[in-house]
């Protein structure tokens, strides 16, 4: 594991987020389209157009910005994350505070061969999830983090 190197997420996460956004916007757009056709009023067609703009934002621009906002690195003493489009959030989790490393994988992530690593400390306030980890690397990364947690704790 290369320490001190800032990395972007795996590009495959863009497909995962895009598919997730599609699951939300497609049913909404379809429902509005049906209503507009049945109602036959220009107001509803305006709503459809606005929903189309919103969907485009959700599926393309927002996902792209979100991907570009994400950086992480394995520092010498802590895992550091930076993310957020509107609210910028930077987090530092010392390795010796890690209590548990979870590997989560939903159906969309499974389809794209991705997992999410979630680090837990003794605090419920710690929000440290690393999405877009290729499934093949997940076990190695989890073992490395667990070993670092144990080593630093012993020290």
């Amino acid at each position: 594991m290369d320490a001190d190197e800032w990395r972007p997420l795996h590009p495959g996460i863009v497909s995962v987020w895009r598919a997730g956004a599609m699951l939300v916007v497609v049913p909404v757009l379809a429902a509005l389209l049906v209503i507009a056709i049945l109602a036959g009023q220009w107001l509803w067609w305006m709503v459809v157009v606005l929903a189309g703009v919103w969907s485009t934002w959700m599926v393309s621009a927002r996902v792209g910005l979100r991907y570009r906002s994400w950086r992480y690195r394995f520092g010498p003493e802590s895992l550091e994350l930076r993310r957020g489009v509107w609210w910028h959030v930077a987090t530092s989790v010392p390795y010796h505070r890690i209590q548990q490393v979870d590997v989560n994988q939903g159906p969309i992530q499974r389809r794209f061969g991705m997992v999410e690593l979630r680090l837990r400390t003794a605090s419920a306030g710690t929000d440290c999830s690393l999405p877009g980890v290729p499934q093949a690397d997940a076990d190695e990364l989890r073992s490395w983090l667990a070993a670092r947690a144990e080593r630093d704790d012993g020290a």
Partner: protein
Amino acid sequence: MGPDDTPRRLHPLSPFLGVIAMAPKLALPAVIVFASTAGRLVIAAGVLLLVWHLAAYWRTWYLLSPDGLIVRSGWFQRNERVISLDRVQHVEVVRSLRHRVTGLRAVHVSVAGNGAPPLVLDAIDAEEARRIQRVLQLGRRLSDVTAAPCDVPPPPPAPLLHLGLGVLALGGVTGAAVLVLPVFLAVGWDELAGYVDDEAAVDRVLSQNAVVLAVGGLVMAAAVAAGLMVLRHYGFTLSRVGPDLRIDRGLLERRSSVIPVRRVQSVQLSANLVRRWVGLATIDVELAAAIDHEGAGSVDNTVPVGARELLEPLVAEFAGVVVVPMAAEQHPPAARRRAVTRRAAVLVMPWALLAWSLPLVALAGAAAGGAAAWFGGARWWASLRHGGDHSVLVTESGWFVFHRTVQPWAKVQSVSLRQSPGQRRAGLCHLDLHIAASRSTTRVRDVGLVQAAALLACAPLPALSNVLATGAGGGAG
């Protein structure tokens, strides 16, 4: 006085106390069923309840081993809960009315871990309860040195604070409890109004005696608030027992809690506007223990009220430091602009909706809202201060309700730095320190980035200050 190898049962009166404990919750349904001709059903249900508690008593054992407290229970599903000594957060001996009548005690053992409820050993005789409290507290400390707690005589408690009736009553009158009666009456009045036939007569009586009713209501509200405070905290005494702090309090239900100082996650001194005027404050201590629905394990209102000059040195006692550093550093003026702007958005903007229909009203409302936003924002900013050294971070905020939080660095699990677009433009951020407690985050609000860097430079863990390289546009490249 040490641990033993023999599993012990609870006191034989435990089943009866269990039934009595459930009585308040079951009293109303029981009366309704009894009144509706099914009296024998109530008696049968009561007998069944007693049999159920007897069965539970028969299958419940506890063992105080050198490694911790082991409790076995259950008929169909056998449960064994082991609480190791190093996970004990604090031990509380409770003496409610039913315990006082029978001369028994309940022991609440709070442990670290989210979602783990405190373990309750109800109905234990007084000496046994003291033994459990003492062994768990002593064993926790000695477990680092030796596996078995030894018979060390308890150090004599050194009193730090005692609250008299006058202070408690004043604390009740100046706290949120003073709103209990008005809220209760407001809700009750709405309900009663539906049954009144001659509303005009009621209005007439109310308007003729408005002053008397208002004064009477205020006196009653104050009396209820003072009574509630005295009931809960009567005889409050805080004392130091070796490295731990002990609190005894309660009129009907006596509670004796031991708080290990090394388990304290953060300490907060608070005072609302009224209490600041009369020189009072409260202290809340956060532990890594779960809180059950009855509040056992909670140490909110650790010191419910007290003279501020007496409580300020106690904050250092709870935080485990000799002196708490001053929160001398004020936040940048940009934080004031942000505070005023945010309040103006709420207090001024809505008046724009009336700009066309009622322009004068909208103008007056916007002007009043703007003045309130300016005043409130400026006062809020003036309250924002921080400071710290290599042991603790101190942060102050709040004008209407003032909070000073003392956060030991050693208890910080992780750090986050948050910036909204407005904060980015102004060079501000929220610095969040995550801790293992029910209030999981200590936040330094609207602090300058340079100030945040200086604060984190004090932290004994370099890993925490790495967040600055991560945030504020740095590092990622």
